[in-house]
């Protein structure tokens, strides 16, 4: 009963769905280094992001000793940054959460196991990200607890391409 989504339009022809947008892009070539903002990221199918620490074959990330295909690209909700400030009084910048893509209007927690378009690239979400103590060490901010259950999404790249700030994010039917 609860292992699939309901099929077809809802009663009264309500439109179920969402459309989001890419707000920020970040990458870093090695563990611990500050994330650097980018206007574009180049996603390579089945591999990762060019120049990022989790690119398969060139891994130098904090978690690279535990390979995982869903770490090819990671996403984070801009809404979570707003909520952190509103609910916990913590100012966390999009360069500090250490995910690659900050999106707005995308219900990341609903997308595990699903495919969606990030600009011209096609992603498949493998699992929710979990917060880690490592990020508290780097940022010096007590964000572990407030990020539980809203720490972003891990994805593998099915179709590569260039992602730009301002790109549309939408469901792949």
């Amino acid at each position, binding site marked *: 009963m609860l292992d699939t989504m309901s099929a077809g339009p809802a009663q009264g022809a309500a439109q179920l769905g969402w459309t989001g947008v890419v707000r920020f892009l970040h990458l870093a070539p*090695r563990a611990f*280094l*500050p994330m650097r903002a980018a206007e574009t990221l180049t996603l390579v199918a089945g591999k990762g992001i060019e120049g990022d620490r989790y690119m398969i074959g060139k891994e130098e990330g904090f978690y*690279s*000793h535990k390979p995982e295909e869903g770490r090819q690209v990671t996403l984070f909700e801009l809404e979570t940054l707003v909520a952190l400030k509103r609910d916990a009084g913590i100012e966390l910048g999009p360069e500090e959460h250490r995910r690659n893509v900050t999106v707005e209007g995308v219900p990341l927690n609903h997308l595990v196991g699903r495919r969606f378009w990030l600009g011209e690239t096609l992603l498949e979400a493998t699992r929710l990200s979990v*917060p880690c103590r490592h990020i508290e060490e*780097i940022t010096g901010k007590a964000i572990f607890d407030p990020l539980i259950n809203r720490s972003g999404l891990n994805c593998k790249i099915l179709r590569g391409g260039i992602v730009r700030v301002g790109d549309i994010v939408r469901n792949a039917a």
Partner: protein
Amino acid sequence: MSARPITTVKTVVTGIEEAGAGVKLFTLADPDRWELPPFKPGAHIDLHLPNGLVRTYSLCNEPAENTRYAIAVKREADGRGGSRALHDEIGIGDVIGVSLPRGGIEPQAHIARYVFLAGGIGVTPFLSMARHLERTQQAEFTLHLIVREEVPLAAQLGSLVEQGRIIVHRTSRTGRPDLAALVGEGGSETVVACCGPESMIESFERVTAAWPAASVHIERFTAPSPVIDPDAKPFTLSLARSGAEIHVRAGQTILAALQEGGIDVAASCCGGICGACKVGWIEGQPVHRDRILSPYERERYLMVCVAGSDAERLVLDL
């Protein structure tokens, strides 16, 4: 894929300069000159040297220079070996892993005056502070540098000496200065800080004993002991399958003790929520601090990243 977890910031040596009085100035940078993790004025880093030694040095460049770490190292022939390894074995292009920067003084808007007292090479933590204050002009500062005769880092200090911001006291000529006179009057707008040999720090502590704690800062050459929960106790892990015994220090995590003992345990969040480091326990009184195991699971398992022990011995299914 790297076989072992990456636990340090990877840097390469991009510069080595002779800086006088047996001191060398080393510059470390990211292999691609990427920005390095930021630091506060007066912060320090651990260097994980190729020979296995781990040594702590103050960063002496300006924090706004975010693509390099500069450290000044005096060769101590009779020291514990870190400075000798750096002076004698390290060259340009060598890779050195470093920790994230720690410590330092966050300049406060209400502080109008800083007085730094440095003994010899103890000047290093105050160099980044002095450069930061010189650039930002946010507060007055005076750095009293007490040396026997030769001034370390003379070329780096030169302009600040000419400006009168650094005052050199040569004990071979004028004897030891009166620290009380150097620090002057206290006050909520003044911060005084000291780094030097232990005898100098003891004198400084006597002189500033009546000052408010927030106005006094001390840097020691050797790292202070980590702050440990006063209720934390050491215990011993017995590994049922391998027969190994591993000591867990007070305040240390079981995960860290296992890793030190060469036992590879998967771990991820290190905060007791992801479930990666679940390990069975057989005997003892574990203290569960995770947030995912059910009461039923806790009778058999614990999360080694956060769990502790109420008994002296804890037997794990490893």
